[in-house]
Protein backbone atom coordinates (compact mmCIF):
# COMPACT_ATOMS: atom_id res chain seq x y z
CA UNK A 1 0.00 0.00 0.00
CA UNK A 2 2.77 2.43 0.97
CA UNK A 3 4.84 1.13 -1.86
CA UNK A 4 1.92 1.78 -4.20
CA UNK A 5 1.46 5.35 -2.95
CA UNK A 6 5.15 6.09 -3.28
CA UNK A 7 5.43 4.61 -6.75
CA UNK A 8 2.21 6.23 -7.86
CA UNK A 9 3.77 9.59 -7.03
CA UNK A 10 6.74 8.62 -9.20
CA UNK A 11 4.43 7.67 -12.08
CA UNK A 12 2.63 11.00 -11.79
CA UNK A 13 5.92 12.82 -11.86
CA UNK A 14 6.95 10.78 -14.88
CA UNK A 15 10.01 9.41 -13.09
CA UNK A 16 8.96 5.79 -12.57
CA UNK A 17 10.81 2.85 -14.12
CA UNK A 18 8.64 0.68 -16.32
CA UNK A 19 8.57 -2.00 -13.61
CA UNK A 20 7.25 0.56 -11.12
CA UNK A 21 4.80 1.87 -13.68
CA UNK A 22 3.32 -1.57 -14.40
CA UNK A 23 3.20 -2.38 -10.71
CA UNK A 24 1.15 0.77 -10.15
CA UNK A 25 -1.10 -0.01 -13.13
CA UNK A 26 -1.65 -3.54 -11.88
CA UNK A 27 -2.28 -2.39 -8.34
CA UNK A 28 -4.79 0.25 -9.34
CA UNK A 29 -6.53 -2.14 -11.73
CA UNK A 30 -7.13 -4.92 -9.20
CA UNK A 31 -6.11 -4.12 -5.62
CA UNK A 32 -6.65 -0.43 -5.00
CA UNK A 33 -10.07 0.40 -3.48
CA UNK A 34 -10.86 -3.34 -3.51
CA UNK A 35 -11.53 -3.19 -7.23
CA UNK A 36 -11.22 -6.98 -7.54
CA UNK A 37 -14.66 -7.00 -5.93
CA UNK A 38 -16.02 -5.30 -9.03
CA UNK A 39 -14.59 -8.04 -11.28
CA UNK A 40 -15.95 -10.67 -8.94
CA UNK A 41 -19.43 -9.13 -9.00
CA UNK A 42 -19.11 -8.86 -12.78
CA UNK A 43 -18.14 -12.53 -13.11
CA UNK A 44 -21.01 -13.56 -10.85
CA UNK A 45 -23.44 -11.64 -13.03
CA UNK A 46 -21.85 -13.14 -16.14
CA UNK A 47 -22.27 -16.65 -14.73
CA UNK A 48 -25.80 -15.93 -13.54
CA UNK A 49 -26.80 -14.60 -16.94
CA UNK A 50 -25.09 -17.49 -18.72
CA UNK A 51 -26.77 -20.11 -16.53
CA UNK A 52 -30.19 -18.55 -16.86
CA UNK A 53 -29.84 -18.03 -20.61
CA UNK A 54 -28.60 -21.59 -20.98
CA UNK A 55 -31.62 -22.94 -19.14
CA UNK A 56 -34.03 -20.86 -21.21
CA UNK A 57 -32.16 -21.72 -24.40
CA UNK A 58 -32.15 -25.46 -23.82
CA UNK A 59 -35.81 -25.59 -22.78
CA UNK A 60 -36.85 -23.47 -25.76
CA UNK A 61 -34.52 -25.40 -28.05
CA UNK A 62 -35.92 -28.77 -27.01
CA UNK A 63 -39.53 -27.61 -27.36
CA UNK A 64 -38.92 -26.10 -30.79
CA UNK A 65 -36.91 -29.08 -32.01
CA UNK A 66 -39.49 -31.60 -30.76
CA UNK A 67 -42.46 -29.75 -32.28
CA UNK A 68 -40.73 -29.19 -35.59
CA UNK A 69 -39.41 -32.75 -35.85
CA UNK A 70 -42.75 -34.24 -34.84
CA UNK A 71 -44.45 -32.06 -37.44
CA UNK A 72 -42.11 -33.19 -40.18
CA UNK A 73 -42.51 -36.88 -39.27
CA UNK A 74 -46.28 -37.09 -39.27
CA UNK A 75 -48.12 -39.70 -41.32
CA UNK A 76 -48.96 -38.09 -44.65
CA UNK A 77 -52.69 -38.73 -44.35
CA UNK A 78 -52.92 -37.67 -40.72
CA UNK A 79 -51.48 -34.16 -40.36
CA UNK A 80 -52.47 -32.32 -37.19
CA UNK A 81 -53.51 -28.70 -37.77
CA UNK A 82 -52.49 -27.76 -34.22
CA UNK A 83 -48.97 -29.05 -34.83
CA UNK A 84 -48.92 -27.25 -38.17
CA UNK A 85 -49.90 -23.98 -36.47
CA UNK A 86 -47.17 -24.18 -33.83
CA UNK A 87 -44.65 -25.35 -36.39
CA UNK A 88 -45.31 -22.24 -38.47
CA UNK A 89 -44.90 -19.94 -35.45
CA UNK A 90 -41.69 -21.60 -34.36
CA UNK A 91 -40.29 -21.43 -37.86
CA UNK A 92 -40.85 -17.66 -37.81
CA UNK A 93 -39.18 -17.48 -34.39
CA UNK A 94 -36.08 -19.33 -35.59
CA UNK A 95 -35.90 -17.28 -38.79
CA UNK A 96 -36.24 -13.92 -37.02
CA UNK A 97 -33.75 -14.71 -34.27
CA UNK A 98 -31.14 -16.15 -36.61
CA UNK A 99 -31.67 -13.36 -39.09
CA UNK A 100 -31.05 -10.41 -36.78
CA UNK A 101 -27.94 -9.41 -34.82
CA UNK A 102 -27.83 -10.14 -31.12
CA UNK A 103 -27.07 -6.46 -30.41
CA UNK A 104 -30.30 -5.38 -32.12
CA UNK A 105 -32.28 -8.00 -30.20
CA UNK A 106 -30.80 -6.71 -26.94
CA UNK A 107 -31.68 -3.11 -27.82
CA UNK A 108 -35.23 -4.06 -28.73
CA UNK A 109 -35.72 -6.20 -25.63
CA UNK A 110 -33.98 -3.72 -23.31
CA UNK A 111 -35.43 -0.47 -24.57
CA UNK A 112 -38.68 -1.39 -26.31
CA UNK A 113 -40.30 -4.62 -25.11
CA UNK A 114 -39.05 -4.48 -21.54
CA UNK A 115 -38.71 -0.71 -21.55
CA UNK A 116 -40.05 -0.48 -18.00
CA UNK A 117 -37.88 -3.21 -16.47
CA UNK A 118 -34.94 -2.23 -14.31
CA UNK A 119 -33.56 -5.74 -13.93
CA UNK A 120 -31.12 -5.37 -16.81
CA UNK A 121 -29.30 -8.63 -16.13
CA UNK A 122 -32.60 -10.54 -16.19
CA UNK A 123 -33.71 -8.89 -19.44
CA UNK A 124 -30.26 -9.65 -20.84
CA UNK A 125 -30.47 -13.29 -19.79
CA UNK A 126 -33.94 -13.59 -21.29
CA UNK A 127 -32.77 -12.11 -24.58
CA UNK A 128 -29.71 -14.33 -24.71
CA UNK A 129 -31.85 -17.34 -23.82
CA UNK A 130 -34.35 -16.64 -26.56
CA UNK A 131 -31.50 -16.12 -28.99
CA UNK A 132 -29.73 -19.27 -27.90
CA UNK A 133 -32.97 -21.27 -28.11
CA UNK A 134 -33.18 -20.71 -31.85
CA UNK A 135 -29.66 -22.00 -32.42
CA UNK A 136 -30.05 -24.83 -29.91
CA UNK A 137 -33.24 -26.01 -31.59
CA UNK A 138 -31.44 -26.31 -34.91
CA UNK A 139 -28.59 -28.19 -33.25
CA UNK A 140 -31.04 -30.61 -31.64
CA UNK A 141 -33.07 -30.98 -34.82
CA UNK A 142 -29.89 -31.69 -36.77
CA UNK A 143 -28.89 -34.28 -34.18
CA UNK A 144 -32.27 -36.01 -34.36
CA UNK A 145 -32.13 -36.07 -38.15
CA UNK A 146 -28.60 -37.46 -38.12
CA UNK A 147 -29.88 -40.73 -36.63
CA UNK A 148 -30.40 -43.31 -39.38
CA UNK A 149 -34.01 -43.45 -40.60
CA UNK A 150 -33.89 -47.24 -40.18
CA UNK A 151 -33.83 -46.76 -36.41
CA UNK A 152 -37.20 -45.03 -36.44
CA UNK A 153 -38.59 -47.69 -38.80
CA UNK A 154 -37.30 -50.51 -36.61
CA UNK A 155 -38.86 -48.96 -33.53
CA UNK A 156 -42.18 -48.31 -35.20
CA UNK A 157 -42.27 -51.74 -36.88
CA UNK A 158 -42.13 -53.31 -33.41
CA UNK A 159 -45.31 -51.43 -32.52
CA UNK A 160 -43.67 -48.79 -30.35
CA UNK A 161 -45.39 -45.43 -30.60
CA UNK A 162 -43.65 -42.28 -31.83
CA UNK A 163 -42.90 -40.93 -28.35
CA UNK A 164 -41.36 -44.17 -27.07
CA UNK A 165 -39.30 -44.60 -30.23
CA UNK A 166 -37.98 -41.07 -29.82
CA UNK A 167 -37.33 -41.45 -26.12
CA UNK A 168 -35.59 -44.82 -26.04
CA UNK A 169 -34.05 -45.10 -29.50
CA UNK A 170 -33.61 -41.81 -31.36
CA UNK A 171 -32.83 -39.31 -28.58
CA UNK A 172 -30.12 -41.36 -26.83
CA UNK A 173 -28.33 -41.74 -30.15
CA UNK A 174 -28.87 -38.12 -31.16
CA UNK A 175 -27.37 -36.79 -27.93
CA UNK A 176 -23.92 -37.95 -28.97
CA UNK A 177 -24.19 -35.89 -32.16
CA UNK A 178 -25.75 -32.95 -30.33
CA UNK A 179 -23.47 -32.58 -27.35
CA UNK A 180 -20.30 -31.22 -29.01
CA UNK A 181 -22.23 -28.55 -30.94
CA UNK A 182 -24.24 -27.74 -27.85
CA UNK A 183 -21.03 -27.26 -25.88
CA UNK A 184 -19.88 -24.89 -28.56
CA UNK A 185 -23.16 -22.99 -28.28
CA UNK A 186 -22.68 -22.71 -24.50
CA UNK A 187 -19.27 -21.16 -25.00
CA UNK A 188 -20.62 -18.67 -27.53
CA UNK A 189 -23.37 -17.85 -25.05
CA UNK A 190 -20.91 -17.26 -22.21
CA UNK A 191 -18.96 -14.81 -24.34
CA UNK A 192 -22.09 -13.15 -25.70
CA UNK A 193 -23.12 -12.14 -22.18
CA UNK A 194 -20.55 -9.35 -22.56
CA UNK A 195 -23.06 -7.64 -24.87
CA UNK A 196 -25.62 -7.02 -22.13
CA UNK A 197 -23.58 -4.06 -20.84
CA UNK A 198 -25.15 -2.00 -23.64
CA UNK A 199 -28.51 -2.18 -21.88
CA UNK A 200 -26.95 -1.56 -18.48
CA UNK A 201 -26.29 -5.15 -17.39
CA UNK A 202 -23.42 -5.03 -14.90
CA UNK A 203 -21.39 -8.01 -16.06
CA UNK A 204 -17.65 -8.43 -16.39
CA UNK A 205 -17.02 -5.99 -19.26
CA UNK A 206 -19.14 -3.37 -17.49
CA UNK A 207 -16.93 -3.68 -14.42
CA UNK A 208 -13.74 -3.50 -16.47
CA UNK A 209 -14.91 -0.40 -18.33
CA UNK A 210 -15.91 1.29 -15.09
CA UNK A 211 -12.43 0.68 -13.71
CA UNK A 212 -10.74 1.90 -16.91
CA UNK A 213 -12.75 5.11 -16.72
CA UNK A 214 -11.39 5.63 -13.22
CA UNK A 215 -7.76 4.80 -13.86
CA UNK A 216 -7.47 5.87 -17.53
CA UNK A 217 -5.38 2.77 -17.99
CA UNK A 218 -6.78 -0.06 -20.11
CA UNK A 219 -4.00 -2.64 -20.11
CA UNK A 220 -4.68 -4.66 -16.98
CA UNK A 221 -8.47 -4.34 -16.72
CA UNK A 222 -9.01 -5.55 -20.31
CA UNK A 223 -6.23 -8.14 -20.19
CA UNK A 224 -7.61 -9.38 -16.88
CA UNK A 225 -11.10 -9.57 -18.34
CA UNK A 226 -9.86 -11.56 -21.32
CA UNK A 227 -8.05 -13.92 -18.97
CA UNK A 228 -11.15 -14.44 -16.83
CA UNK A 229 -13.23 -15.29 -19.90
CA UNK A 230 -10.52 -17.63 -21.14
CA UNK A 231 -10.38 -19.44 -17.80
CA UNK A 232 -14.17 -19.74 -17.68
CA UNK A 233 -14.32 -21.13 -21.23
CA UNK A 234 -11.51 -23.60 -20.54
CA UNK A 235 -13.24 -24.72 -17.37
CA UNK A 236 -16.46 -25.17 -19.28
CA UNK A 237 -14.75 -27.10 -22.07
CA UNK A 238 -13.06 -29.36 -19.54
CA UNK A 239 -16.32 -30.14 -17.73
CA UNK A 240 -18.02 -30.82 -21.03
CA UNK A 241 -15.21 -33.16 -22.03
CA UNK A 242 -15.69 -35.18 -18.84
CA UNK A 243 -19.42 -35.33 -19.44
CA UNK A 244 -18.94 -36.53 -23.01
CA UNK A 245 -16.45 -39.19 -21.97
CA UNK A 246 -18.88 -40.46 -19.33
CA UNK A 247 -21.57 -40.69 -21.94
CA UNK A 248 -19.32 -42.60 -24.31
CA UNK A 249 -18.14 -44.95 -21.58
CA UNK A 250 -21.73 -45.99 -20.92
CA UNK A 251 -22.19 -46.90 -24.55
CA UNK A 252 -19.81 -49.44 -26.00
CA UNK A 253 -20.15 -49.24 -29.69
Amino acid at each position, binding site marked *: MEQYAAWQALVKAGEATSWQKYYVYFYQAFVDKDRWMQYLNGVLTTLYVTALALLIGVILGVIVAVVRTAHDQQRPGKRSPVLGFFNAILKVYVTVIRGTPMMVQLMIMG*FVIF*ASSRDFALVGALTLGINSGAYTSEIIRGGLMSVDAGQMEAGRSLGLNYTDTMRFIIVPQAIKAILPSLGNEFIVLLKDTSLIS*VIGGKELIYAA*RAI*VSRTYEALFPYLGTALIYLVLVMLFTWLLGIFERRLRASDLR
Partner: protein
Amino acid sequence: MMKKIVAILCAMMLTLTAVSAFAADFTTIEAGKLTMSTSPDFPPFENTDDDGNIIGIEPDLIALICEKLGLEPNWLAMDFDSALLAPQTGKADAVVSGVTVREDRKTQFDFTTSYVSIHQAIVCKEDKDITMDNLGEQTIGVQNGTTGQIYAVDDFGEDNVVAYNTYSVAFLALTNDQVDCIVVDDLVGKAYAATIPGLKVVETTYEAEEFAFGVSKGNTALVEAINEVLEGLIADGTVEEIILKHSMN
Protein backbone atom coordinates in the same frame (compact mmCIF):
# COMPACT_ATOMS: atom_id res chain seq x y z
CA MET B 1 18.35 33.68 -63.77
CA MET B 2 19.80 33.11 -60.36
CA LYS B 3 18.06 36.15 -59.07
CA LYS B 4 14.76 34.88 -60.39
CA ILE B 5 15.09 31.58 -58.58
CA VAL B 6 16.01 33.26 -55.35
CA ALA B 7 13.04 35.55 -55.71
CA ILE B 8 10.65 32.64 -56.26
CA LEU B 9 12.09 30.74 -53.31
CA CYS B 10 11.73 33.76 -51.11
CA ALA B 11 8.15 34.22 -52.18
CA MET B 12 7.38 30.56 -51.50
CA MET B 13 8.90 30.71 -48.04
CA LEU B 14 6.94 33.84 -47.26
CA THR B 15 3.64 32.22 -48.22
CA LEU B 16 4.47 29.07 -46.26
CA THR B 17 5.19 30.99 -43.08
CA ALA B 18 2.11 33.09 -43.56
CA VAL B 19 -0.20 30.08 -43.99
CA SER B 20 1.19 27.97 -41.19
CA ALA B 21 2.82 30.23 -38.72
CA PHE B 22 3.16 27.38 -36.20
CA ALA B 23 3.68 24.44 -38.53
CA ALA B 24 7.32 24.05 -37.75
CA ASP B 25 6.82 24.03 -33.98
CA PHE B 26 4.60 20.98 -33.34
CA THR B 27 3.92 17.56 -34.76
CA THR B 28 0.70 15.60 -35.17
CA ILE B 29 0.29 11.85 -35.69
CA GLU B 30 -0.78 12.48 -39.26
CA ALA B 31 0.99 15.45 -40.86
CA GLY B 32 -1.34 18.30 -41.79
CA LYS B 33 -4.21 16.86 -39.76
CA LEU B 34 -5.40 17.25 -36.19
CA THR B 35 -6.75 13.84 -35.20
CA MET B 36 -9.24 13.96 -32.32
CA SER B 37 -11.22 11.33 -30.47
CA THR B 38 -14.75 12.24 -29.41
CA SER B 39 -18.02 10.78 -28.19
CA PRO B 40 -20.52 12.71 -30.30
CA ASP B 41 -23.57 12.27 -28.06
CA PHE B 42 -22.92 15.31 -25.93
CA PRO B 43 -24.91 18.25 -27.27
CA PRO B 44 -24.33 21.13 -27.40
CA PHE B 45 -20.62 20.35 -27.18
CA GLU B 46 -20.61 17.71 -29.88
CA ASN B 47 -23.29 15.81 -31.69
CA THR B 48 -23.83 14.36 -35.13
CA ASP B 49 -26.12 15.95 -37.69
CA ASP B 50 -28.26 14.00 -40.14
CA ASP B 51 -25.36 13.75 -42.58
CA GLY B 52 -23.11 12.20 -39.95
CA ASN B 53 -20.98 15.33 -39.53
CA ILE B 54 -19.81 16.09 -36.03
CA ILE B 55 -21.19 19.48 -35.04
CA GLY B 56 -21.39 21.60 -31.91
CA ILE B 57 -19.40 24.01 -29.75
CA GLU B 58 -16.15 22.11 -29.82
CA PRO B 59 -16.15 21.31 -33.56
CA ASP B 60 -16.74 25.03 -34.20
CA LEU B 61 -13.85 25.96 -31.92
CA ILE B 62 -11.61 23.32 -33.43
CA ALA B 63 -12.47 24.53 -36.93
CA LEU B 64 -11.24 28.02 -36.04
CA ILE B 65 -8.14 26.68 -34.31
CA CYS B 66 -7.28 24.33 -37.18
CA GLU B 67 -7.71 27.12 -39.67
CA LYS B 68 -5.16 29.21 -37.80
CA LEU B 69 -2.75 26.31 -37.39
CA GLY B 70 -3.05 25.21 -41.01
CA LEU B 71 -4.42 21.80 -40.04
CA GLU B 72 -7.35 19.75 -41.22
CA PRO B 73 -9.64 18.48 -38.43
CA ASN B 74 -9.97 14.70 -38.38
CA TRP B 75 -12.63 13.30 -36.01
CA LEU B 76 -12.67 9.77 -34.60
CA ALA B 77 -16.05 8.95 -33.05
CA MET B 78 -16.14 6.36 -30.24
CA ASP B 79 -17.60 5.72 -26.78
CA PHE B 80 -16.45 8.26 -24.20
CA ASP B 81 -14.34 5.89 -22.16
CA SER B 82 -12.47 4.83 -25.29
CA ALA B 83 -12.15 8.44 -26.43
CA LEU B 84 -10.36 9.26 -23.18
CA LEU B 85 -7.80 6.51 -23.83
CA ALA B 86 -7.15 7.40 -27.49
CA PRO B 87 -4.45 10.12 -27.08
CA GLN B 88 -2.52 7.94 -24.66
CA THR B 89 -2.45 5.00 -27.07
CA GLY B 90 -1.38 7.17 -30.01
CA LYS B 91 -4.66 6.91 -31.88
CA ALA B 92 -5.43 10.62 -31.58
CA ASP B 93 -3.58 13.88 -30.99
CA ALA B 94 -6.19 14.98 -28.51
CA VAL B 95 -9.49 14.07 -26.95
CA VAL B 96 -12.09 16.73 -27.71
CA SER B 97 -15.24 15.53 -26.03
CA GLY B 98 -16.32 17.92 -23.31
CA VAL B 99 -13.49 16.69 -21.09
CA THR B 100 -13.47 18.02 -17.55
CA VAL B 101 -10.06 19.01 -16.22
CA ARG B 102 -9.34 16.68 -13.30
CA GLU B 103 -6.17 16.12 -11.32
CA ASP B 104 -6.15 12.38 -12.02
CA ARG B 105 -6.58 12.98 -15.73
CA LYS B 106 -3.51 15.23 -15.81
CA THR B 107 -1.31 12.15 -15.73
CA GLN B 108 -2.91 11.05 -19.02
CA PHE B 109 -3.06 14.28 -21.02
CA ASP B 110 -1.67 17.76 -21.17
CA PHE B 111 -4.75 19.94 -20.92
CA THR B 112 -5.15 23.09 -22.94
CA THR B 113 -6.49 26.26 -21.42
CA SER B 114 -10.05 25.65 -20.33
CA TYR B 115 -12.63 27.58 -22.26
CA VAL B 116 -15.84 27.08 -20.32
CA SER B 117 -16.98 26.36 -16.83
CA ILE B 118 -20.01 24.15 -16.21
CA HIS B 119 -21.86 22.47 -13.35
CA GLN B 120 -23.27 18.99 -12.90
CA ALA B 121 -27.03 18.91 -13.15
CA ILE B 122 -29.77 16.35 -12.51
CA VAL B 123 -32.21 15.68 -15.34
CA CYS B 124 -35.45 13.90 -14.51
CA LYS B 125 -39.09 13.76 -15.58
CA GLU B 126 -41.11 16.85 -14.76
CA ASP B 127 -43.42 15.04 -12.32
CA LYS B 128 -40.52 13.70 -10.24
CA ASP B 129 -39.23 15.60 -7.24
CA ILE B 130 -35.52 14.86 -7.27
CA THR B 131 -32.90 17.09 -5.64
CA MET B 132 -29.44 16.62 -4.17
CA ASP B 133 -31.12 15.61 -0.91
CA ASN B 134 -32.86 12.52 -2.22
CA LEU B 135 -30.52 11.70 -5.11
CA GLY B 136 -29.15 8.75 -3.13
CA GLU B 137 -32.54 7.03 -3.22
CA GLN B 138 -32.72 7.12 -7.02
CA THR B 139 -31.36 4.97 -9.78
CA ILE B 140 -29.00 7.31 -11.60
CA GLY B 141 -28.14 6.99 -15.27
CA VAL B 142 -24.79 8.25 -16.56
CA GLN B 143 -22.39 7.75 -19.43
CA ASN B 144 -19.45 5.48 -18.81
CA GLY B 145 -16.28 7.45 -18.02
CA THR B 146 -17.88 10.82 -17.32
CA THR B 147 -17.47 12.96 -14.24
CA GLY B 148 -21.17 12.41 -13.73
CA GLN B 149 -20.44 8.70 -13.27
CA ILE B 150 -17.53 9.40 -10.95
CA TYR B 151 -19.57 11.67 -8.67
CA ALA B 152 -22.60 9.42 -8.61
CA VAL B 153 -20.65 6.24 -7.87
CA ASP B 154 -18.46 7.94 -5.26
CA ASP B 155 -21.43 9.41 -3.42
CA PHE B 156 -24.09 6.73 -3.82
CA GLY B 157 -22.28 3.49 -4.75
CA GLU B 158 -22.23 1.23 -7.83
CA ASP B 159 -25.63 -0.26 -7.13
CA ASN B 160 -27.45 3.04 -7.59
CA VAL B 161 -25.73 3.91 -10.86
CA VAL B 162 -26.20 2.50 -14.36
CA ALA B 163 -23.50 3.54 -16.84
CA TYR B 164 -24.38 3.45 -20.54
CA ASN B 165 -22.11 3.61 -23.57
CA THR B 166 -23.55 6.96 -24.62
CA TYR B 167 -25.64 9.68 -23.03
CA SER B 168 -28.22 9.26 -25.79
CA VAL B 169 -28.88 5.70 -24.56
CA ALA B 170 -28.92 6.95 -20.96
CA PHE B 171 -31.64 9.47 -21.87
CA LEU B 172 -33.55 6.71 -23.68
CA ALA B 173 -33.46 4.74 -20.43
CA LEU B 174 -34.69 7.86 -18.59
CA THR B 175 -37.71 8.26 -20.87
CA ASN B 176 -38.42 4.53 -20.38
CA ASP B 177 -38.30 5.02 -16.58
CA GLN B 178 -35.49 2.49 -16.41
CA VAL B 179 -33.53 5.08 -14.46
CA ASP B 180 -34.98 7.86 -12.30
CA CYS B 181 -32.61 10.61 -13.35
CA ILE B 182 -29.44 11.43 -15.20
CA VAL B 183 -26.44 13.22 -13.74
CA VAL B 184 -24.79 15.20 -16.51
CA ASP B 185 -23.13 18.52 -17.30
CA ASP B 186 -25.77 21.26 -17.15
CA LEU B 187 -25.42 22.56 -20.71
CA VAL B 188 -25.74 19.00 -22.02
CA GLY B 189 -28.67 18.25 -19.75
CA LYS B 190 -30.44 21.37 -20.98
CA ALA B 191 -29.77 20.44 -24.59
CA TYR B 192 -31.37 17.00 -24.10
CA ALA B 193 -34.25 18.48 -22.06
CA ALA B 194 -34.88 20.90 -24.91
CA THR B 195 -35.34 18.09 -27.43
CA ILE B 196 -37.04 15.45 -25.25
CA PRO B 197 -40.40 16.68 -23.92
CA GLY B 198 -41.36 16.27 -20.28
CA LEU B 199 -37.88 16.56 -18.76
CA LYS B 200 -36.58 19.14 -16.32
CA VAL B 201 -33.08 20.15 -15.22
CA VAL B 202 -32.29 20.45 -11.50
CA GLU B 203 -29.15 22.13 -10.20
CA THR B 204 -26.68 20.31 -8.02
CA THR B 205 -24.21 21.51 -5.46
CA TYR B 206 -21.25 19.85 -7.14
CA GLU B 207 -18.53 22.40 -7.76
CA ALA B 208 -17.85 23.99 -11.11
CA GLU B 209 -15.85 22.04 -13.68
CA GLU B 210 -13.58 23.38 -16.37
CA PHE B 211 -13.69 21.99 -19.90
CA ALA B 212 -10.56 21.77 -22.00
CA PHE B 213 -9.01 19.65 -24.73
CA GLY B 214 -6.81 16.76 -23.59
CA VAL B 215 -3.69 16.68 -25.76
CA SER B 216 -1.54 13.55 -25.75
CA LYS B 217 1.01 13.68 -22.96
CA GLY B 218 4.26 15.39 -23.85
CA ASN B 219 3.14 17.19 -27.00
CA THR B 220 3.76 20.56 -25.32
CA ALA B 221 4.28 22.34 -28.61
CA LEU B 222 0.79 21.40 -29.80
CA VAL B 223 -0.74 22.49 -26.48
CA GLU B 224 0.99 25.82 -26.74
CA ALA B 225 -0.03 26.31 -30.36
CA ILE B 226 -3.69 25.51 -29.55
CA ASN B 227 -3.59 27.68 -26.42
CA GLU B 228 -2.32 30.65 -28.34
CA VAL B 229 -5.28 30.53 -30.72
CA LEU B 230 -7.81 29.47 -28.07
CA GLU B 231 -6.85 32.27 -25.68
CA GLY B 232 -7.28 34.75 -28.50
CA LEU B 233 -10.77 33.32 -29.19
CA ILE B 234 -11.67 33.60 -25.52
CA ALA B 235 -10.34 37.15 -25.29
CA ASP B 236 -12.24 38.45 -28.30
CA GLY B 237 -15.51 36.87 -27.20
CA THR B 238 -15.72 34.29 -30.00
CA VAL B 239 -15.92 31.34 -27.59
CA GLU B 240 -18.78 32.87 -25.65
CA GLU B 241 -20.56 33.66 -28.89
CA ILE B 242 -20.25 30.06 -30.11
CA ILE B 243 -21.44 28.63 -26.79
CA LEU B 244 -24.37 30.99 -26.75
CA LYS B 245 -25.26 30.15 -30.32
CA HIS B 246 -25.37 26.41 -29.63
CA SER B 247 -27.14 26.73 -26.28
CA MET B 248 -30.00 28.72 -27.79
CA ASN B 249 -31.36 25.83 -29.83
